[in-house]
């Protein structure tokens, strides 16, 4: 929740809006996401993880910054590239790894894996294997909030590629017509798999499409924690006030390939290197250090601490039991079918 921890208007928004504790917590989450995904990558290489996964390394500011003003009562819908959202929404890392390892202690009891990870208690309605799949679902969650008067806001994460799905159009239109408390957060990392925005999308910025839904649309530097927070917090506040949906576009970049099978033929090493220079975590750390919120040493300690958390989480997952084969068809129905 944004408070007005500091009212000096020369300060970046986040430093004005959030307490030291919140800010350090945010940096900590960004580290956790990075380390979590590095840990997942490493586990994959060691054969502990089956299938594929989509890493969001380089996009941490978008996930954490967008969720800053949410409570556990607020919802998010996430994407195939959803580990960051999950951590940002306070998931347990052990249960996340357990899911990746296909264990019964995982968030989906090993049935879902990386592409379906969810944490309903914390308001994360789930990653989605279908590009654009979460868009109308988010609108539905917002409809519930409005009808039942819960005051909850839903953040709908989606990618630049997803914005060309019909579901995007239908979802934004309905959210606007019905004035629902939902914030559409586009994580524009320049590519949908191998296909660049230029080759797939008839506008330069996804936010340019907001006008077609009569909602505010804003494009921000998605690697700038404060900029993300400022834009999304305003949209969340608007939603909470009953003024309807908004579209926020976070310009960011994924350092890794699209998935484990990406041969990286569609972008240059230079482009990747350039974006690695804009590391959102380093920038957040610099922000906090330059404003005397943390020292470099404290940043280092924080990072080390998160590494340990990841090791513990992996250990938990490793030690967890696998689902029983006999249970393969459980959870299809709520009351098991005769």
């Amino acid at each position, binding site marked *: 929740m944004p408070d007005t921890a500091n009212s000096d208007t020369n300060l970046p928004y986040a430093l004005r809006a959030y307490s030291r504790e919140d800010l350090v917590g945010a940096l900590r989450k960004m580290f956790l996401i990075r380390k979590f995904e590095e840990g997942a990558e490493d586990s994959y290489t060691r054969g502990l993880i089956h299938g594929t996964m989509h890493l969001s390394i380089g996009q941490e500011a978008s996930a954490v910054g967008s969720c800053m003003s949410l409570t556990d009562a607020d919802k998010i819908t996430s994407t195939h590239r959803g580990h960051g959202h999950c951590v940002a929404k306070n998931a347990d890392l052990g249960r996340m790894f357990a899911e990746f390892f296909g264990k019964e202690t995982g*968030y*989906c009891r090993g*049935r879902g894996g990386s592409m379906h990870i969810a944490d309903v208690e914390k308001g994360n*309605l789930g990653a989605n294997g279908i590009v654009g799949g979460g868009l*109308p679902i*988010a609108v539905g969650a917002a*409809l519930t909030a409005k009808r039942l008067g819960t005051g909850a806001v839903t953040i709908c994460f989606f990618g630049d590629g997803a914005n060309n799905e019909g579901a995007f159009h*239908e*979802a934004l239109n309905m959210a606007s017509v019905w004035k629902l408390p939902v914030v559409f957060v586009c994580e524009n990392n320049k590519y949908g798999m191998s296909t660049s925005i230029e080759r797939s999308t008839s506008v330069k910025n996804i936010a340019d499409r907001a006008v077609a839904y009569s909602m505010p649309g804003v494009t921000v530097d998605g690697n700038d924690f404060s900029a993300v927070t400022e834009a999304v917090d305003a949209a969340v506040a608007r939603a909470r006030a009953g003024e309807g949906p908004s579209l926020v576009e976070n310009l960011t970049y994924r350092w890794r390939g699209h998935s484990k099978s990406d041969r990286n033929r569609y972008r240059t090493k230079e482009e990747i290197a350039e974006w690695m220079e804009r590391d959102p975590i380093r920038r957040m750390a610099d922000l906090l250090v330059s404003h005397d919120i943390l020292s470099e040493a404290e940043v280092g300690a924080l990072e080390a601490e998160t590494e340990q958390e990841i090791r513990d989480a992996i250990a938990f997952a490793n030690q967890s039991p696998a689902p029983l084969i006999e249970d393969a068809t459980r959870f299809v129905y709520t009351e098991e*079918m005769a």
Partner: protein
Amino acid sequence: MNAMDTPEARELSYAEAIREAMDIALESDPRVVLMGEDIGVYGGAFQVTGDLVHKYGTDRVMDTPISELGGAGVAVGAALTGLRPIFEFQFSDFAALAMEQIVNQAAKLRYMLGGAVSVPLVMRFPAGSGTGAAAQHSQSIEAWLAHVPGLKVVQPSTPEDAKGLLLAALEDPDPVMIFEHKILYKSKGLVPAGHYTTPIGKAAIRRAGTDLTIVATSIMVHKALAAAETLAAEGIEAEVIDLRTVRPMDRETVLASVRKTGRLLCVYEGVKTLGVGAEVSAMVAESDAFDFLDAPIVRLGGAECPIPYNPDLEKAVVPQVPGILDAARALAKGRI
């Protein structure tokens, strides 16, 4: 529940019975919302929602834009978070636009999330031919959804069941797909007043018989019953089973009947190949009832073509009473 025994049963049309079920649900459960195209002031393309919007307002009876995929997805998201949406497709054919939300999301969410959620969603699909609306407005695609674990699929054939199955669907924590036959909307029958449920997953024996079993769905139940009357006059006693639920199928009722009669005729309007009757046939052919079969299992389904516009062609491509009679007579030959 048998309508005949119920003092407060009244004669209602199938459409009225469905509306009554929705009225009861809206009245008794604030979580229930109706969603669909032109279900408000228009009353629905088939006048099923009728005047409900005047009683409950546009927040509870919501006209959606013409956005089947998005609309279905909104219903999924709403069901996931605490509402009880009843989503009407204007024609079941338009489900083709929403298969992703129905199949990839609604049906699978509970499983994919390891049981952490359920999706109490009811969808209504006006289905079938006979209205002269041609190939894109006349399909019977219940077999697609019945192929999908995570969904339940019902096809009421009477006003009583139309109401009872809808109320049962609303009590069900999982997504229930209701295929309503458009031609049945105006058909009348006794319907108990108030709240009651017709169990999902239970077939109904509409007519007892000993010479052959006819398993029919939806409007074909009525054609099968009409044929059975004629057959009886010829000395052939057909047992007519109304399948009612396609998934999960009531194996026991069907198998018990086949064990008794030794002959099975499946009658359904959907395209014959891979239509509901394919499953009924295969289910029987792999069961212990196989040993009781005295003849091949016959299927009468829709012809292998889209539904044509011309009314005579339209009738010709789905099973009709004379075809059922011919098939039943051929099947019963040797038996009597």
